[in-house]
């Protein structure tokens, strides 16, 4: 909403980029589900519908993601509003994601039935089938994606996950004090303070309670 309201020029690109990610994640969930369907031999009709949805998610996701990523790289490189804030990692992260989307798109077009191929691959993983093989474009895509997943926690892109745990909790939590908060507060107020400015009068031993409840006329000394 914030980007839509305050940064409309960026919105189509960031929307395509993020929607691409959501669709690929959705496709992965469906592929795991399809693998379970294959193992449990559910009705072919259900499996085909689910494979069809996964295939559409994959194609649209890879296309949107590729367009969004390429657009964002160009926008970041050319827009005077964004350019001063770019670093090497800004481009590297976007390129990395772009390679994932594009390799995924190539794998989709190379494969006659992408959703089916990836679902069977997952089925073999789940059933510890040592004879797991996939075509080169898909195996390359999987390797790049796994490398990215390993890299992800070391980047600020982890905001994807962190946002859902932190956004409301940190910004808008105004829950009144309950016993749990009170206990936590007592522990925190007992933390020692070591700020150096003279008016704080901290020595690394006095805690927050000691410092903030000192006699007010001590202030004359600061």
């Amino acid at each position, binding site marked *: *909403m*914030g*980007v839509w*309201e*305050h*940064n409309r020029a*960026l919105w189509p690109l*960031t929307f395509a980029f993020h929607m691409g990610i959501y669709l690929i994640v959705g496709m992965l969930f469906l592929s795991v589900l399809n693998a379970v369907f294959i193992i449990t031999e559910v009705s072919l009709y259900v499996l085909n519908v689910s494979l069809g949805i996964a295939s559409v998610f994959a194609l649209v996701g890879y296309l949107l993601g590729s367009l969004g990523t390429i657009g964002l790289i160009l926008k970041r490189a050319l827009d*005077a*509003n*964004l350019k*001063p*804030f*770019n*670093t*090497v*990692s*800004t481009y590297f992260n976007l390129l990395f994601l772009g390679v994932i989307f594009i390799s995924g798109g190539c794998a989709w077009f190379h494969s006659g039935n992408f959703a089916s191929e990836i679902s069977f691959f997952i089925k073999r993983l789940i059933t510890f089938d040592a004879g797991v093989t996939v075509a080169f474009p898909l195996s390359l895509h999987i390797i790049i994606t796994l490398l990215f997943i390993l890299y992800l926690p070391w980047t*600020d892109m*982890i*905001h994807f996950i*962190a*946002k859902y745990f*932190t*956004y409301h909790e*940190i*910004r808008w939590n*105004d829950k*009144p*004090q309950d016993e749990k*908060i*009170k206990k936590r*507060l*007592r522990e*925190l*107020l007992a*933390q*020692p*303070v*070591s*700020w*150096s*400015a*003279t*008016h*704080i009068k901290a020595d690394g031993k006095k805690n*927050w309670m000691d*410092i*903030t*409840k*000192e006699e*007010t*006329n001590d*202030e*004359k000394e*600061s």
Partner: protein
Amino acid sequence: MKKNLKLTHFSKDGDTQLIEINVDELIPLPAPYDKIEELPGFKRLTDDQRQRLVCNLDGVVSYTALPKPKNKEEGKEYVEQFVSGLKKLLSKQNNWTFLQPLLLSIDYCAQCQTCCDACPIYLASGKNDLYRPTYRSEIFRRLVNKYVKPSGRLLAELNRGDIELNWVTITRLYELSYRCTLCRRCAQSCPMGVDNALVTRELRKLFSQELGWAPKELHEKGTVLQLEVGSPTGLKPNVVKDNLKFLDEEFTEATGVEVLTPWDKEGADILLIHSAGDIISFPESPIAVTILCNAAGFSWTLSSEIPGYDGVNYGVFYDDVQLAKVAIRHAQIAKKLKVKKMVMGECGHQHKALMTVADRVLAGDLNIPRENVMTFLENIVFSGNIKFDPSKNDFPVTLHDPCNIVRNLGIVEPQRRILRYLCPQFHEMLPHGVDNYCCGGGGGLSVMSDVNFTGWKVNVAGRMKFKQVLGAFSDQPGPEVKKYVCAPCLNCKLQFRDILEYYGAREKSGIICGGLAKLIVNAMVDIKKPFIEWVEG
């Protein structure tokens, strides 16, 4: 004006000013305020001031005591102190209060710049890069990443865009941390929840709590004076009581109703804490509340104990320890008086300090119930105990939303319910409510006036708000129609006073500014003479 200012420029060029503010590059104001040559002008620093003071940011000085190092070693010491402060800011022991949102804001900014167009200062400045909410935060972020995080220096090198940390960087960062009103409009627009205002406030905190640098109006003449004598106004307990006694008598005579402010009534239901600045600068405000509380038949009291008669808490702008000291003293006084609740005065940051932040500071029996002024006044107006005649308020009224009451606490409707009921010509300015623009005096800026800082406040910080106010009254722009900007916050009123005076808006547009209680009392049937005199503002 320097456009396309790079982040790396920030630590370069020693004493040289980074940008110059030119009024003709700011966003234009509507007539008759569009003629720059007819305005008082932006006060430039003299050669002598440039020699003596640190003025390496934008030609504005908010703190004359900012030190210039005598030699390289001294400059290095400041850098070491700053790095030490950075580490403390990122430690749980020294900063458990705001560590979590600070880390979120450091780690998860996607650099989309969406927040910039939400910032009234950046917009008013004509989109000057220096005033982007992200500019100061990104410098801070890169310094944190480099000096506090493991392998930070190596990653900073690899990433390029490394910010050199030297005395210039530090002093510019200090000044830049006072070019933000902490209104948090940027935070509200951020899709990630990054709070650049919090980053600004944490920077101020680092300077205050580690280096001892803080504007004198906020520290020596602010929290220190408040804890020592009772109020940043300098009002001592006996003086404040005398002042209000005098005002009680004066308004009893003027209004025809008995005005009697109760003091130190142990066991009263309500401890009301005004901002003492209101008593000096806008005395109708506290008197209006007295009239309303008495008419409503409340059991209430003021306190004459230090600092119980002044609800301001400038610590909220720059220093956690000072913030906690003042908040705890307020709660201790309420506890001593055995009141059932504390009610805030018409003061935005008092609400943030005592209702929001202090809720994670006041432990045990100090956690006394606290009510905001808006619902308090709403209950009085709609209690049915007081008769009103809305035709007495039949003039154009618009409402300024104090950020700390509206965006911070989400209290939007009570004040509007009152105004819709009592003011036939009430209309909103746009945008309003949680999307409001700050008056330009938030974050403590309204009380800061060192060197040429007031010029920056009225020309840049308050420009969007002034434009907005003019827009709200654009159907009747002339001075022949008297207009009222209702600003239920002392700091906002002080900023409006400066703005209206600078632009001559009372004479040119007939605009004055006052509080909410004053408007309410003006509509009371029992108050025979008009309570609003149309001279102040």
